[in-house]
């Protein structure tokens, strides 16, 4: 596609519910990243995929967070048993290569846990 597409745009979950956030990267992009952005802060790294391989998950805040990219294109970030502190904007980004290239971000999913 022309850009990185994320869905849903907004998600409201009751505390304890599971959520799944989808990212469709730019077609052909090898690298895919997930970031979390709290209100008034810069994005913080969560995890990185190169094709279908998850090479870095050091930023995932707890084992309630899980990400996958099974066919090396679309990715899903899943949060189990959501907590209020999970409320944030979740941003997906992709880049064309495997090294250091410009990142292209999607519009994000705003998650509110009530």
């Amino acid at each position, binding site marked *: 596609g022309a850009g990185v597409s994320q869905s849903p745009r907004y998600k409201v979950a009751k505390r304890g519910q599971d959520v799944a956030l989808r990212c469709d990267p730019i077609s052909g992009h090898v690298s895919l990243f997930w970031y979390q952005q709290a209100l008034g802060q810069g994005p913080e790294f969560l995890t990185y995929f190169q094709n279908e391989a998850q090479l*870095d998950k050091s930023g995932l805040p707890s084992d309630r967070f899980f990400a996958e990219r099974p066919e090396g294109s679309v990715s899903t970030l899943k949060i189990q048993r959501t907590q209020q502190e999970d409320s944030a904007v979740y941003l997906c980004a992709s880049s064309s290569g495997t090294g250091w290239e410009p990142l*292209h971000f999607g519009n994000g999913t705003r998650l509110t846990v009530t």
Partner: protein
Amino acid sequence: GIQVEQSPPDLILQEGANSTLRCNFSDSVNNLQWFHQNPWGQLINLFYIPSGTKQNGRLSATTVATERYSLLYISSSQTTDSGVYFCAVGAFGYALNFGKGTSLLVTP
């Protein structure tokens, strides 16, 4: 991780004015990018600039890697330039560390 400090934190300009945003970082980097987050939350990549100087229209950026800073210049500012400007750096590995951003408001 690498610490990123951006200054100023807030900036108000009148349309047509020029400005310089600064990004200091605490260690050597292999990756430095500038982003603009518009009022609707969209993060737009402005520059990939681990070293050297680049220009794109009214925007230009310079990174002096040996002195661990980067500058973003905005000339003839327009109201559409409003938003938050982020500097993000990376060294080894894949993660980019973002600064807290400079919030820019351009008034008519």
